[in-house]
């Protein structure tokens, strides 16, 4: 016994970083394994199940997966080490922020999957029956009327979700890149699956893919340069190298810049936002909800980790630049949002403005900056899911009626829907007693404590400008006369109702009693090892 323990001690002394040498402690990453495993199983379902069983099978599998991963996460959190631990030979850092982000991603994807699974709003579901049919042909018109759908969307969702979870826990840049691709490729495909307006949907997919490929290239080039600089892709090693060395700053700054551009693209921060309105508009609305909420969470999870772990010691170099980016993003989102006539594009620009607010929190390299950004992500995600859920309900004979003029007088036809949407818009605008306000408050508080007063003032002005376009929709719904041949409001099925209810309740809850979620978000910082 004593011999064994002394041997172990010896082994530990020899290995400087024991976490790397140990067998992977799987308990920490069970949620990821469950999601990715279920994604593979889901592919098999697609291949082996008879057609009529696929949809129910996939829905049950996906929902069960998310719940099971959530349960595993909760049981792990209670006993997790406060300082976090690494897994998979040091490639994943399972620390408090990562756990918070996982929980957020799982909860948000539950809402998104409920929207994806709904078949009552659009008979047969929001997804195309056979994606390969050319738009505008006879077959295309036939598939619009059919009730079949491509159930591939479920495994794609799970893969994307798995990628996102890895992305925000990645402890080195290479893992992060692989995760980035795992989360992006399914999303490109999912964008092209809309049942109606196929051309728009496919255009969105191509646009997203091309620009996304560019962004990935930027990211990868940045990784290469940083590897050249630090001799390692591990975030902690880069941080160490940047803190004290006389190596070439050119490599560091070029690598840093390219890397951050890739990340900002994914997070739809202006001026790297150009894909956002087109993709949000063209993609099937449930997928837009998934993208808008979950991708934002994952991308900002990655940004936070890169900025706070790898680039923390160089913050005075990048801070000024990111100040500018945050301002540009808020201004673009708020001002261009004013000119939109399509409700989905409007929400897209709103998301660009919100990305600016989130970036403010991320720039504040303090514990408060981290916890406030995490909290903001949680609040924004739920509000967004519910918002897109409501948007999917307003329809006319050609599908969703997303043109703003069609929303005129909606409150007369469907007071409940108008009230819910008003509440969500007020949350996006950041009115008190909604989660949006608390999120803005904590982010601005963190920024002011870190000496970013001018940036906060710009953000507040941008919020006021953005409030105008949210108000415009409220004005349309409540104070305008309805058009004679306006859209109808579909009575949602159980799935969509559940998703919207979930989003609305959390938006209200986090607005009135945010204390518990704030505690979660501030329970720990990134593990640097």
């Amino acid at each position, binding site marked *: 016994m004593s011999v064994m323990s002394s041997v172990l001690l010896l082994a530990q002394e020899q290995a400087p970083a024991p976490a790397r040498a140990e067998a992977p402690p799987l308990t920490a990453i069970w949620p990821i394994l469950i999601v990715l495993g279920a994604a593979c199983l889901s592919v098999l379902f697609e291949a082996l199940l008879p057609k009529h069983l696929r949809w129910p099978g996939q829905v049950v599998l996906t929902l069960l997966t998310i719940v099971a991963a959530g349960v595993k996460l909760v049981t792990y959190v209670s006993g997790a080490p406060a300082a976090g631990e690494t897994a998979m030979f040091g490639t994943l850092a399972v620390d408090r922020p990562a756990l918070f982000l996982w929980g957020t991603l799982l909860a948000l994807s539950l809402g998104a999957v409920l929207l994806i699974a709904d078949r009552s709003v659009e008979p047969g579901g929001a997804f195309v029956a056979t994606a390969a049919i050319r738009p505008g042909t006879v077959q295309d018109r036939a598939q619009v009327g059919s009730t079949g759908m491509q159930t591939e969307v479920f495994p794609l969702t799970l893969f994307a979700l798995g990628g996102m979870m890895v992305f925000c826990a990645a402890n080195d840049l290479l893992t992060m890149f692989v995760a980035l691709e795992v989360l992006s490729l399914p999303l490109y495909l999912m964008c092209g699956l809309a049942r109606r307006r196929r051309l728009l949907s496919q255009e969105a997919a191509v646009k997203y893919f091309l620009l996304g490929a560019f962004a990935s290239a930027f990211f990868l080039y940045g990784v290469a340069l940083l590897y050249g600089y630090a001799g390692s892709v591990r975030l902690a090693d880069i941080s160490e190298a940047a803190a004290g060395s006389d190596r070439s700053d050119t490599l560091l700054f070029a690598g840093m810049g390219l890397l951050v551009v890739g990340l900002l693209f994914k997070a739809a921060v202006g001026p790297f936002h150009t894909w956002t309105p087109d993709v949000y508009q063209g993609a099937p609305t449930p997928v837009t909800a998934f993208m808008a909420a979950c991708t934002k969470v994952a991308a900002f999870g990655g940004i936070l980790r890169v900025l706070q772990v790898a680039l923390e010691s160089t913050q005075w170099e990048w801070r000024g630049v990111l100040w500018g980016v945050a301002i540009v993003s808020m201004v673009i989102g708020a001002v261009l949002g004013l000119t939109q006539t399509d409700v989905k594009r409007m929400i897209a620009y709103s998301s660009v403005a919100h990305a600016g607010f989130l970036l403010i929190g991320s720039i504040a390299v303090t514990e408060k900056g981290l916890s406030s950004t995490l909290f903001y992500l949680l609040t924004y995600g739920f509000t967004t899911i519910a918002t897109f859920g409501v948007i999917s309900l307003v329809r006319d004979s050609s599908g969703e009626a997303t043109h703003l003029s069609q929303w005129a007088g909606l409150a007369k036809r469907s007071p409940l829907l108008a009230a819910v949407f008003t509440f969500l818009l007020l949350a996006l605008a950041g009115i008190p007693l909604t989660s949006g306000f608390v999120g803005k*408050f904590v982010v601005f508080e963190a920024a002011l404590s870190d000496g970013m007063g001018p940036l906060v003032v710009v953000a507040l002005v941008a919020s006021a400008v953005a409030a105008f376009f949210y108000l415009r929709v409220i004005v349309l719904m409540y104070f305008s006369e309805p058009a004679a041949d306006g859209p109808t409001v579909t009575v949602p099925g159980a799935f969509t109702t559940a998703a919207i209810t979930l989003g609305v309740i959390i938006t209200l809850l986090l607005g009135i009693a945010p204390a518990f979620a704030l505690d979660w978000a501030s329970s720990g910082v990134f593990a640097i090892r």
Partner: protein
Amino acid sequence: MSTSSTGSWLLAALLLLPLVGAAVVVALRGNDKTAKSAALAFSLAEFALAVVAWVQFEPSGARLQQAFSFDWIPAFGVHISFAVDGIALVMIAVIGLLVPLVIGAGWVDKLPEGRTKGGFFALILLEQALTVGVFAATDVFLFYVLFEIMLIPMYFLIGSYGGARRQYAAVKFFLYSFLGGLIMLASVIGCYVLAVEQNGTGTFEWAELVKVVSTAPLETQVWLFLGFFAAFAIKAPLVPLHTWLPDATAEAPIGVAVLLVGILDKVGTFGFLRYLLPMFPLASKELAPLVLVLAVVGVIYGSMLATGQRDIKRFLAYVSIAHFGFIALGIFAFSSQAMVGSVTYMVNHSIATGMLILVVGMVIARGGSTRVADYGGMAKLTPVLAAMLLIAGLSSMSLPGTNSFVSEFLVLIGSFPNAPVYTIIATVGMVLAALYVLWLYQRIMQGPVRGDALVGAAGGPGTMVDPAVGAKKAIADLSGREKLVLAPLVVLIVGLGFFPKPVLDVVTPAVDATMCQAALADPVQSGERQLQCR
């Protein structure tokens, strides 16, 4: 943690009763009649509670009374805490007084198609609860939250029930106030950060923040002051941030205009007293000239535009802008006399202008037009209504014997020692007030019966014209209900004109405390009036 003091149940009831009332009225909205009665009952009960709260209040007692507090967001030291001082108390009483009158005045108004009385009155009760909360909040975060939330019912009141350009007016109102509120939010957070830096733990408790922020260096105070000032100057409104008020007043239904001018705008001047002076004493002194200039410009500009208005409802807005100039002058002249004058001005303005708006609403209800030119010689048809307009008008121009005279006189006499030039210019406003009030009265009420609203075209072809007076038959004098609505206001105008002591007694200790917090001393010590800091 929760604390409470004697009478805190009263304040809690004052806050909750209108909320319950709003819920009940919404539930009853299917039947106009029961909904209306319920709304009136709740508003009267609220008024009764406000009277009890007034009686329970001890002017010589602690600054903040009837207090209670709960934790809300412990991570940021945010509490749900309410309490009243003399200034807040009189404002809450004014709210309690005006809301039943507004409900009574709107009893038979036609609403836009598809809207119910229940919805309308429920929104008014909701607005009442929120405004009571704004005046009673003693946590700065809570104050901000209520300050923003109270925009929403008002937005729907203007946007859903207003006139032809209601959408524009509602959005303009909301955006102006929201922008001001956001700028204030930056300052609110700034104060919190200061508290964190100084005490280690942050707090939003007003009393604590006053201690922390009032000792901050001048430059910091100036920035924080400007954030709060932006919000309050928009709300009050001071020229040049006033442009939303004429639109909002012109488009809002009459009752809503009373609440807007009589209550919501007072939050701005209340904010000057409760937040600006105690929290930023150095900055207040430094920037007082700025506020005084804006105040005096407001008096003159508002008076001149009121004189030239062709639209009666816009006239009301400009009259208020002129009056808010006087209130701001009295607050930033830094003498307890002027400040007491300003606080009583806030009360008296709500009563006098509230009545003026209600009477103008009754004129418009009869003529169906808001253009002054559409009226003339109406006194012949409706002598009682004419008398009411005269009383409200005379009070608005601060004739001795009316309530407004007391407050305007106090403001001017108290401001003179510290700000003589501003005071002299503002006095010109009194002359202009006589001009715009009497001229309006003359154009609408006196002379031969004339104008499209009373005879001829506006009624359309086939309108019955009474040959005896040459006007439409439908134009009748005040009904019993309308008399009942106006009677309490007439009593108060005359009563407070001759016996203002009850109000003065309640507000003076709070004003003294404010003066002390701001480290101000009276320029002239007069007789018994001694500023005593505890």
